Each structure stands twice: as structure tokens, then as C-alpha cells.
């Protein structure tokens, strides 16, 4: 200690301290950050597996080096988040060609997805996969999430995230079952017709608020069966089918009781 105290005034001390500080911050950052670092930290073995998987499942469309082909985007720089979103929601590998790639039961398990993500992000840095803490709905502000969702998302996804139509057979899907991580990643990467909501537009905290709001919608309605959350059209349909159905049935029954 004494030695340390003695050298405190050494003329290299500031430089050493600065170096130390940088190292520590860097280390902490590397450990904690959601990091595009995944590319750097992913083992070369992962990247190798990912490359093989890519060649087997994706290359026909995206090209041998993910450089893209006519009608299929290049994946250089889309980041791990895009891959994780597309593959874990089952959209990729794409099968049917339609107005848009639709989500299906996922084909790649967690490990394979991670490997693919590692491979793609090794080609060029892009948004990384968010951490579990970032997407935890428990820490979000539901009311703020509602306000953000209303102004940024409801025009495509409906007020409670029940989904909506876009032009030419494209659609914004219902969000009842989307995982919190995929909600986050969808905003981060803006799949297909959806705009990107980068961290300057919608901050990570706000993204978490939106997740909290969407997850809260899954609790159901205080009013009873939510009838799909689709609003007046489904209410009208149910009104006719159930209400008028039963009432006319009753009228026929009462009418028949006499004659």
C-alpha cells in the first residue's frame, strides 16, 4: 500500500490510471452490454456451425455468402437480432412465396439459431439480441407503453395488437403470442413492411414499456370475453349471432307455444 501511495504522484500515474479505467469500463461493457459484441465473443466454432447451417438452409435464397440475390435481401449488417427474430418466429427459412414471409413453427432450435446469428453478425455488425432484462415486461410502464403503442404501432397492429391489414395481402400480425424478445427485435429490425424503431426513436426503456403493455393485454378484458379484440365489427357479428339468434329463437318458441 505504501508503495502504491508513494508512486501515486509518479508522472505516468495519470496515464496508467486512464488505461486502467478504460480497461475496466471496456471489460464491464463487454460483460454487460447487449453487445454487437456477440459477434466478437461468439466462438469461431459457433460461427463455423452457423455457416454450415446457413449454407444448408439459407444460401439458396440469400446467396452463399449472404450477399443476397434478386428479390432477397443481403444479410450483411442486419445483425443477430434480425436473424434471431426471423428464425425464432419461424419466418426463416422461408418456404412459401406469398405477399410476405409468415411465421410458422420454428425449424431451428435455440442453439442453431444462435449459431446462425453468430455467423450472420460475423459478416457485419448490426443490432444485437436484447438481454432478458431488457425485455422483461415486469419492469415496463404499462400506461406509457399504451400511449407509445397508440401513436406508433396501433395504425398497423390494431389498438390492442390484434393485427390489421396492409395493402396487397400484406398484414401486420396479431401480437397475442409474440415473445417479449421478438417484440423488441421487431422494433429494432423492422421486418418487411414494418418500419424500424431504432433506439433514438423509441428508447430501450420505451420498448420495454410497449412490451409491458402488450403482455398486459393478454390478461383478457375486465368486461368478459374480448371477442378477439377486433372492435365494433366483431361486436356486431356477435350481437346478431348470439343476441338476435337467441331472441328470435325465443320468439319462435313463444309463438309456437299457442298454436
Amino acid at each position, binding site marked *: 500500500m505504501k508503495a502504491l501511495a508513494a508512486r501515486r504522484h509518479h508522472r505516468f500515474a495519470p496515464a496508467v490510471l486512464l488505461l486502467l479505467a478504460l480497461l475496466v469500463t471496456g471489460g464491464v461493457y463487454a460483460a454487460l452490454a447487449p453487445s454487437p459484441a456477440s459477434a466478437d465473443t461468439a466462438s469461431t466454432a459457433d460461427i463455423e456451425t452457423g455457416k454450415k447451417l446457413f449454407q444448408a438452409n439459407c444460401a439458396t435464397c440469400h446467396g452463399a455468402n449472404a450477399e443476397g440475390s434478386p428479390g432477397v435481401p443481403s444479410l450483411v449488417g442486419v445483425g443477430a437480432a434480425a436473424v434471431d427474430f426471423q428464425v425464432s418466429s419461424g419466418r426463416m427459412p422461408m418456404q412459401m412465396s406469398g405477399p410476405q414471409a409468415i411465421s410458422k413453427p420454428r425449424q431451428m432450435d435455440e442453439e442453431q439459431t444462435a449459431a446462425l446469428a453468430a455467423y450472420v453478425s460475423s459478416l457485419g455488425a448490426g443490432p444485437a439480441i436484447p438481454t432478458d432484462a431488457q425485455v422483461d415486461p415486469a419492469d415496463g410502464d404499462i*400506461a406509457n407503453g399504451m400511449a407509445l403503442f397508440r401513436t406508433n404501432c396501433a*395504425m398497423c397492429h390494431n389498438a390492442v395488437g390484434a393485427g390489421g391489414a396492409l395493402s396487397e395481402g400484406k398484414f401486420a400480425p396479431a401480437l397475442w403470442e409474440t415473445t417479449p424478445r421478438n417484440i423488441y427485435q421487431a422494433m429494432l429490425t423492422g421486418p418487411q413492411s414494418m418500419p424500424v424503431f431504432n433506439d433514438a426513436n423509441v428508447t430501450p426503456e420505451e420498448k420495454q414499456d410497449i412490451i409491458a403493455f402488450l403482455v398486459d393485454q393478454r390478461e383478457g*378484458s375486465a368486461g368478459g370475453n374480448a371477442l378477439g379484440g377486433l372492435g365494433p365489427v366483431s361486436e356486431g357479428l356477435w*350481437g346478431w349471432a348470439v343476441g338476435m339468434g337467441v331472441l*328470435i329463437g325465443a320468439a319462435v318458441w313463444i309463438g309456437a307455444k299457442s298454436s
Partner: protein
Amino acid sequence: MSTTASNQHREAPAKPTTPAGKAADYLDQRTSIGVLVKEFARKVFPDHWSFMLGEIALFSFVVLLISGVFLTMFFEPSMALTHYEGQHPANMHGQLMSVAFASTLEMSFEVRGGLLMRQIHHWSALIFMAAIVTHMMRIFFTGAFRKPRELNWLVGMTMLILGLAAGFSGYSLPDDVLSGNGLRITDGVIKSIPVIGSYTSYLVFGGEFPGAHIVPRLFTIHILIVPGLLLALIALHLFLMVLNKHTQYPGGGRTDDNVVGFPALPVYVAKMTGNFFIIFGVLALMGATMAINNVWNYGPFDPSPVSAGAQPDWYMLFLEGSLRLMPGQGTEWVIAGFTLPLNILVPAMVVPGLLFTFLFVYPFVEAKVRGDEREHHVLDRPRNVPTRTALGVAFLTAFIILALAGSNDLIATHFHLSINSITWVFRVLIFVGPVFAFWVTKRVCLGLQRKDRELVLHGHESGRIVRFANGEYIEVHRPLDEQERWLRVNYHAYEPLRIEPKSDARGVKRKGYGADRRWQRLSRFFFEDRVEPVTPAELAAAHAHGEHDELAPAEHPAIGAGVGAGHGTTQGH
């Protein structure tokens, strides 16, 4: 209970003993109401399930009134701003909103039974409108609007429009995003009216949309003006119904000069009471189990957001559809500095204008082309008036296509179709669909009429084959019984109007010939294709010809009043 209508002091034949009896006697001695009650109790009402459709409308209106009074006690019609302090719903906590919206939330989450009442009220509104429309379909397709009931048709039409006004004004009260979108459209439609549009909009909203006045104004309309008018008109409607007597379906013994049915007391009143409880119960159950208009999902009104799936309640959906179908390009004209936005005027004014005009004038037009001044108390079987039935179906087709067009985004997502193609399909269908529906319905009606003729002339096929001594095979036909025959022959097949010649004997041109000619043309459209009912002569001829078809010739009792009624009561008009 007294049996005379005399006001003189008199000795009651037997003093009433029960409390109810005493109370009734007390009332009767002071008002002589007994006479009225008895008169009414003995009044005969025909019976049919479709006559209860009006009742569904009536009783859901009663439910609307009761639940509405409850809501009025907690709703605050103010557009002043406030922060919502309640913990529920979580997505509204601390948000800036109007007092109207906040009071709606408080009513739903703080007031015991408040949400239930709100939902009962809203479901009742949907069912009220559905019942009115179904009731009206019954009136239309059976021809219950004919003389002397044209006036009641007009009263009904006015109530239909008031019903729309009630729904629209109530829907907009909570001041949420969805209803605000509706108001925004209304504002746009008002502004699209040439010259006076923008002034009218300022008048309605008390300044630039949305302003701070529209909710209190709609509140007055919704809880005072519209229900007041509706109540008065319902009273008039029912009074006219009793005055004109109720119509009856065709059948043995039923004519334009009698009423066959049950006395109001006890049969009709018992049924009515039963129906009331069923309707009340169903509405309460719907309110308790099915969420409706959960405004906190839409959030407090703010003019900018419009969420996907923004639609009005079902009875306004045809207007939404009409707007969605209208192509926007090239339909906004600027003439001498004035904008003529046909892309709004046509779908939002012309289309509903045409639909409602058709409904308003139809009874009068039909009376004119039928050319009869008679009273009609026996209803038509829809097949026996093919053109009317076909017009009605065409109208419904147009209405349904518009409502579907108003839901085009939901159709797109649920059936994985392109919204653009759906819109184009509907743009074509709105012209082709009604015409096609008209043609098909008319053919079906004429076909059914022909089948009726066959049946009357030749009887039911029995499937029994008989061989005669001379070797001839025939299938035995069972003749129709009197009831069945009455139903099928007792109608009038109108012919196109006959008009006076163009010029009189001296060759002078007759005034009004042109108009007559136009009516005649319309009359041809109605009655050119027709199937005449079987006449007695034809029937006799058919019987003579097919004598041996009938192994056991039926007795033919004369059909008279009462016979057909079976167990009912007949009352002269």
C-alpha cells in the same frame, strides 16, 4: 268489479276481497278504467312469432332507458382535461384525458356494477337496432305497410333514423380515440357540403374540430332529445297499431274484414311478459359475459392516431363501407375556387340518401302502381309479390355489401386476401350484386307460385301407384285440405295499370297522360310477370279431369270465419 260504464253511484254486485281486487276497485270507482281494461283485454291479437320482433325492439328500448338512467348518474359530459388517478385499468393510470373519458373509466372500474351497466346498455343498443331492422324486414316482406298502415311505416322510419342518431350520439360520448375517429369523419362529411360546409362544422363543434363543446352537446341530444322523441313516437306507433288493428297472416277464415287470434288477456299479455323477461335476461347475460366497447383499449381522444380495425357500430357500417369503396382519385373537383369533394359527398350523402328515400317512399309508390285504394289487413306471402320481395332482397344485398366493404380489412386478415382486390370486388358487386339478387329472387318467387298452382290443381303426390281394370297406371294424388288450399289461392295477382288513352274522342290531348304513362311503365316493371292464383273454375276443371286421381273425394266444408281459426277467436273489424 263493475260491468257497466255508468258513472252513477251504484251498489257493487260483490265487494272485492283480495288486496289486489280492492285496489283495482278503488281505482275503477274513481276512473272507470275498468271499461278500458276490459275493452283492451278482449281485443284480439293475431299470433305469429314474427309479430314479436317489434316487441324485441320495444323491450330492448326499455332496457336502454333503465341502464341509461344509471349511466347518466355517473357520466360527466365535459371535455375539460384531467389526469386519471385510478389504478385500473393499468394502461390508463396517470394519463391526460378529458373528464368525460375519465368518468367513463371511473364508472367502469370504481362504481359497483358500472361496467356491467355500460355493457348492457351498449349491447341493448346493438340489439335494439338489429330488432328494428328485422322488424322492418317483416313489415316490408309481408306488405304490412299497405293501407291503412302507411303512416305507421313513416313513424317507424323516423324511429329508425332516431335510432341511428341515438347510437351515434351515445357512441361518441366517452371521448375515446375510436369514437373520436367517427366524429372526425362526421366533421369531414359536414365540411364536404358545398358552400355552407365549413360554417356548419364550426357551428356543430363550436369552433375548429374537435373543440370543447361537442361532448356536452351530444349528451343533450343523447339523453334528452332523441329518447324523448323516440318515446313519443313509440307511443304513437303503438297507438296506430291498435287503432289500425294488427295484420294477420293469410290462412283459412282470415280476411281483410276480421281479426283471428287470441284475446289480449291472458294469452297475449302472458306471452309479452314472458318475452320481456327473456329479452331482459339475454341482454343482461350478454353484458355480463361479453366485453363491448372497452374504451380504455382505444385510449383518450387525440386527433392524430387511427388504429387498424377502426370501425363504427354495425348499423353505421354501411356508411363506412360506402366511404371505403369510393375511389379517391379524380373525384375531387375544384370549380371556380370552390371544392366539390365528390369522393365524400357521393358515399356519405348520396348513397344513404338513396337508400333512405327508397324506404320512405316505397309504400306510396307501390300503392300507386297497384292502383288500389283498398285496406289490407291480411299479409302477403312474400312469394306472391315477386317484385316487392325481389326489391327488398336487392336492398338488403346492397346494405350487406356496403357493411362488408366497411369490414374489408378484417376480411383481408381473416381470409388472407388482398385488401385491394377485396375493395375492387366490392366496387363491382355493389352494382352487380343487387341486380343479380333481384333477378334470382324474382325467379324463385315465380317458381314457388307455380309450384303452389300445381299443388292446388293436382294435390300432393302420395307415391302410391294404382292399376285400373283397363290396365292404366296412375299415381294417386291426395288433394289439399281446405287450410292448405286457402293459403295458396287467396291472393290477388295485380296487373299493370290500365290508363286512359292519349287523346279523347275529339282528338284533344289529355292532360296528365305523360305522368300516367310513366306510372304505367313502373307498374309493368312490378306486375308484368305474374302467376295468377287458381280460380274455382280451374279447380273444378282439374278435378273433373283427374277425377279418378282421388280415391276418396274429400268433403268440402265451406270455409268461413272461425273454421280456419281452429282454437282462436274471430273478431269483426
